[in-house]
């Protein structure tokens, strides 16, 4: 599979995403500079974490206008798989590829720690290697992960099973205490109605190898490979 990792000015998990796909999963990766306008030959697109444009103004607000985003939108419209992680998720929201917006964390602080998320929908291209209801331990690292959307949109997302990951306790209970940032309905990750665009705040690329002590995140990438019928 050919994975395209978009590099915005200020992206800083771009190398981490490349490492996972290339060195851990043996796929071929192209780093795509934000000024490029073609995604020819790419099978899946990753918008990595980081601080595109310093997170100035609002997270993702400036990156969404990068030249490459036109190609990303067209790619998504054609059904191409797109994953936005952390800042990538924020960019997808600002670009309108996913509904909603991010507010500052409830604590106002940047938070970096392991959290638990529950796989609410295991029938997506990004979760099919998981069991339904499975609890994954994945780290978050962000200051603006407090997801918000209006009640109508939220109801529609719930009805369509678009809420893929929710913050939960290690036992899988979705409680306010398990919510690290104040996110609406404990939302940690969502997909678009068509099911080909995923945005998630936790960083699966940070826990996909034994040497880092945790492999839960690898399931997200294995799901994608499975959906794309790639053998690993």
């Amino acid at each position, binding site marked *: 599979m050919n994975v395209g990792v978009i590099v915005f*000015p200020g992206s800083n*998990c771009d190398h981490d995403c490349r490492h996972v796909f290339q060195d851990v999963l043996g796929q071929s990766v192209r780093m795509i500079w934000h000024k490029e306008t073609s995604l020819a030959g790419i099978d899946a697109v990753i918008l990595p974490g980081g*601080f595109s444009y*310093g997170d100035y103004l609002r997270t993702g607000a400036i990156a969404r206008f990068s030249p490459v985003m036109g190609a990303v939108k067209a790619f998504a419209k054609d059904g191409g798989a797109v994953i936005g992680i952390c800042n990538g998720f924020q960019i997808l929201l600002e670009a309108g590829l996913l509904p909603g917006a991010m507010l500052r964390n409830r604590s106002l*602080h*940047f938070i970096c720690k392991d959290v638990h998320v529950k796989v609410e929908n295991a029938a997506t291209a990004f979760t099919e290697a998981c069991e339904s209801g499975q609890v994954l331990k994945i780290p978050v690292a962000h200051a603006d992960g407090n997801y918000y959307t209006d009640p109508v949109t939220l109801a529609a997302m719930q009805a369509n099973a678009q809420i893929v990951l929710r913050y939960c306790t290690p036992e899988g209970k979705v409680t306010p205490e398990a919510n690290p940032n104040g996110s609406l309905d404990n939302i940690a990750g969502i997909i678009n109605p068509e099911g080909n665009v995923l945005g998630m705040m936790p960083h699966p690329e*940070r826990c996909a190898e034994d040497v880092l002590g945790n492999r839960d995140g690898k399931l997200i990438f294995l799901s994608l490979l499975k959906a794309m019928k790639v053998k690993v």
Partner: protein
Amino acid sequence: MSLVITKELIAQHNLTDDEFKKIVEILGREPNLTELGMFSVMWSEHCSYKSSRVHLKKLPTTGPRVIQGPGENAGVVDIGDGLCVVFKMESHNHPSFIEPYQGAATGVGGILRDVFTMGARPIALLDSLRFGGLDTAKNRHIVKGVVAGIAGYGNCMGVPTVGGEVVFNDIYSLNPLVNAFCLGVAQKDKIFLGTAAGVGNPVIYFGSKTGRDGIHGATMASDSFDDQSEKKRPTVQVGDPFQEKLLLEACLELMAGDLLVGIQDMGAAGLTSSSCEMASRAGNGIDLDLTHVPRREPGMTPYELMLSESQERMLMVAKAGKEEECIRICKKWDLDVAVVGKVTGDGILRVFDQGKVVAEIPAKSLADDGPRYERPYSPPGYQDMLTNLNYDALPDVKDANAALLALLESPTIASKRWVYEQYDHMVRTNTMVRPGSDAAVVRIKGTNKAVAMTVDCNSRYCLLNPYEGARLAVAEAARNLACSGAEPIGLTDCLNFGNPERPDIMWQFVMAIEGMKDACEHFKIPIVSGNVSFYNETNGLSIYPTPMLGMVGLIESVDQTMTQWFREDGDDIILLGA
């Protein structure tokens, strides 16, 4: 503009009469204001190490693994596989007291630049912090600001802050310590130095524009300064980590090509220090034309341009003919860039503005011929009392449980989770041992190795006995590494002390150096970089002597990595050591 250099002006520049005489001798004439400013920053304690250099020389700085010892932007140690680690520690104490967030943030920015100018990609930060007690709003404000500032800068840069130290003691209330350590990895044969070799090579400025930030001696009078000076010249520098991230990527891209002769960041004393140090190391001179320096504000004088401490700026010397390629790469990363001069063979740093020579100084005199002092030292009057404390006179602990709980509750011992959860300590996906253990462990991708890092110093020990305190700090750091499965391979330091013109402070400093020296020789751990921060005192009250150490260890095989916690029920617990 001709201006009489008055005694007052000299004093405002923190130069002594003798130092001024030496300047006149070097130049064969009186300096103009710009030149006076340049000498004053380069001959300041901060840049010239005038009080510490004679003692720092005693430290062991060589070893089979050492590729670059002190004197460059950072130290370099071989870790095999054709790779090396590049590391250094730096203080940003005073700025962090004035404006905690920006002071700490720009401290992190500075230490990162020190490491990536050498050609290394930074892969880990650690921070060592000293604050006054949490019972005052002022101290809490400083703690919050400093931690947020470190987080703000390091997180945005995508360099994980993997460990550190926080100690609370009221002695630091008016003088908190913010010491930041950074480590990067580079290919052994791809180390870049700050040298302006090759007469005729172009000198290129890149990064942010120059503003009136942090200009030394802001209160000074001169015909171009008016009543509004104070307002116009903020001494607080604001960091822009986004800009620095672009600078980092641009630097590494520049270095990957065969384009550069030398490169140096503009830290303290900005354009002055970077240009004269690079020239001096190569035995060359530089013609620098300020006309082309990118600036943020109109009307800046040569004095201001040469002394500005605006952040996120660099100076590189390119191979002749490669300037277009350098400019292209800088522009790709949206950086300001301009050819501002060329290397000359006459050893003179000659500064032009609008076609006129505004400063003309032998580069070596500025960079290396600053004063050296063997300051007198003697123990403080209270030292005997401290040495002869009678510990037996302390009352016995009656309720050990209560005592333990009280200890665990004290902020210095309590969990530092509130601090390190604000730091991204996992980005770059190398962090094997996160904050919370004896040392942080970070794997080196592409090898089976890892490096362990720790920062340590118990300043109370150092007050009681600076020699033993420093020795113990080295031993503690080495133990923390050993317990993580690593063999210590190098050390950096950040020596925080009071006013060196006071014999008792100088004594603490000299004793601490002796202690570090003996311990390093004993363990055969070389000191490859470091920093001295003097004048950490307010209203005559000095901080405890705080020689902070940052030690780096090598783990040959990642599966040898150890953590400090108990793992399983029923495991045996063994007490080792005397």
